């Protein structure tokens, strides 16, 4: 999906009411932008500002523009017109419905048909260990299963030109596969992460401190080389983890 869309974040204030050092960021399709910083530094708040298309009406007073304009109210609230899909840090569903009922209703809220339900479940099961069944209740799913289902749901049902991802590495799912699924081609991707692979896969990363956007680091050529090495280490680490999960010895993998 290729769309002509530009996302602009205008700086607001940090937790002490001081202005963001970064006053404006523009993001275009195909861009992956990271958000990094210590826990409590305002990473999730920044991503929430984007999800809400904040207009100076959130505690950070930031302003988010689409194509240099204040977005129409319906773009902010109507899921049928929403430009943004968000994978938050929530690991559990609270809705007491079956997987099928929930997905069918979510598809409807996004103006799409029920035929997507099976596709979501199939995709979710490619990311998680124990399979998810359509007649299961959402509330009995494990954290990893819920997270896989949320990821697949975003890839298939909430398929939007702007994708926001909050700490996908914590989910206990295959993070690179999940990221590939979510980002697709030609989307604007903003990813909150502590993970070196994900942070270095971004073309630049916003550094958060005390609630404010304090710096932007562009991923250098040297960092990209490091990223490739980290991916090798990470793959090895993941294969160890998978082997242990399957109840096998890691002697051969090591």
């Amino acid at each position, binding site marked *: 999906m290729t769309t002509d869309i530009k996302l602009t974040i205008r700086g607001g204030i940090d937790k002490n009411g001081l202005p963001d050092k970064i006053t404006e960021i523009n993001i275009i399709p195909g861009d992956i932008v990271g958000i990094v910083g210590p826990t409590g530094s305002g990473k999730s708040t920044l991503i*929430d500002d984007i*999800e*809400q298309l904040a207009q100076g*009406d*959130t*505690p950070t007073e930031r302003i988010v523009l689409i194509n240099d304009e204040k977005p129409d109210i319906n773009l902010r*609230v109507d*899921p049928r017109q929403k430009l943004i*899909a*968000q*994978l*938050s840090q*929530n690991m559990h*569903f*609270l*809705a*007491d*419905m079956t997987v099928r009922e*929930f997905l069918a*209703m*979510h598809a*409807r*809220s*996004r103006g799409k048909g029920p035929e997507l339900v099976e596709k979501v479940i199939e995709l979710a099961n490619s990311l998680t260990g124990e399979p998810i069944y359509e007649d299961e209740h959402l509330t009995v799913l494990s954290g990893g299963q819920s997270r896989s289902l*949320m990821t697949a*749901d*975003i890839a298939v*049902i*909430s398929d939007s030109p702007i994708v926001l991802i909050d700490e996908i590495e914590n989910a206990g799912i295959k993070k690179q596969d999940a990221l590939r699924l979510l980002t697709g081609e030609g989307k604007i991707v903003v990813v909150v992460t502590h993970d070196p692979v994900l942070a270095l896969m971004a073309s630049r990363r916003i550094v958060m401190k005390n609630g404010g956007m304090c710096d932007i680091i562009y991923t250098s050529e040297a960092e990209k080389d490091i990223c490739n090495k980290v991916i090798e280490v990470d793959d090895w680490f993941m294969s160890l983890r998978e082997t242990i999960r399957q109840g096998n010895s890691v002697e051969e993998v090591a």
Partner: protein
Amino acid sequence: MKLAVTAGTPGSGKTSILLHTIKALKRRGNNPAVVKVDCLWTDDDTRFGRLGVPVKVGLSKDMCPDHFTIYNTDDMIEWAKGEGADVLINETAGLCLRCAPYPDNCLAICVIDVTTGPNTPLKVGPLLTTADIVVTTKGDIVSQAEREVFRERVLEVNPDCMIIEANGLTGKGAIELAELIEMSEETSEDMMLRHTPPLAICTLCTGEMHVSRKYHMGVLRHLDGFTEYRGE
């Protein structure tokens, strides 16, 4: 005088949302006053009082809190006028979900908690179905998908309402709500309710303590749905 009647299940965040909304109303140059109705006890008046707006508490005690609100609406408006207010915010106790204390010439606001699950909008009844604005709260605790499903369910039962996704902790949604209150129609005399209150004139309403069926008279509905009048 504008009248904003706010109803919603206990713990849904009515007071927190209103606190932020009142601040926003004041910043925009309005003079809001608040009447908080509760059944037995409340300390919300001190929370509202800190904002420097006129506050009045009504405790319904032995009367149904929604009936109490309806019965006292004229008095509340008179009181707010006397306080020099131009907007009266009425926060109801909101308990049984069967009454909706919304008059026709008011802005009817229903506050509902997303974490109660997407079947809740089907259970809430006229409180939700006759509201002009539905404020959904605690959306930060669930996924975007769950928020969207909840929204869909609200629109199923009230297709014409305006939905505001709010957050009582951060104040998200308060500016939007304040704008809508500001734009609402002036209230009038001789207002009519939007929905009939339930048929509930029975002996229990007047203090009967016995449980056994033989002690009860009035308009009574059986488990199987049969409704009868017993009495003189």
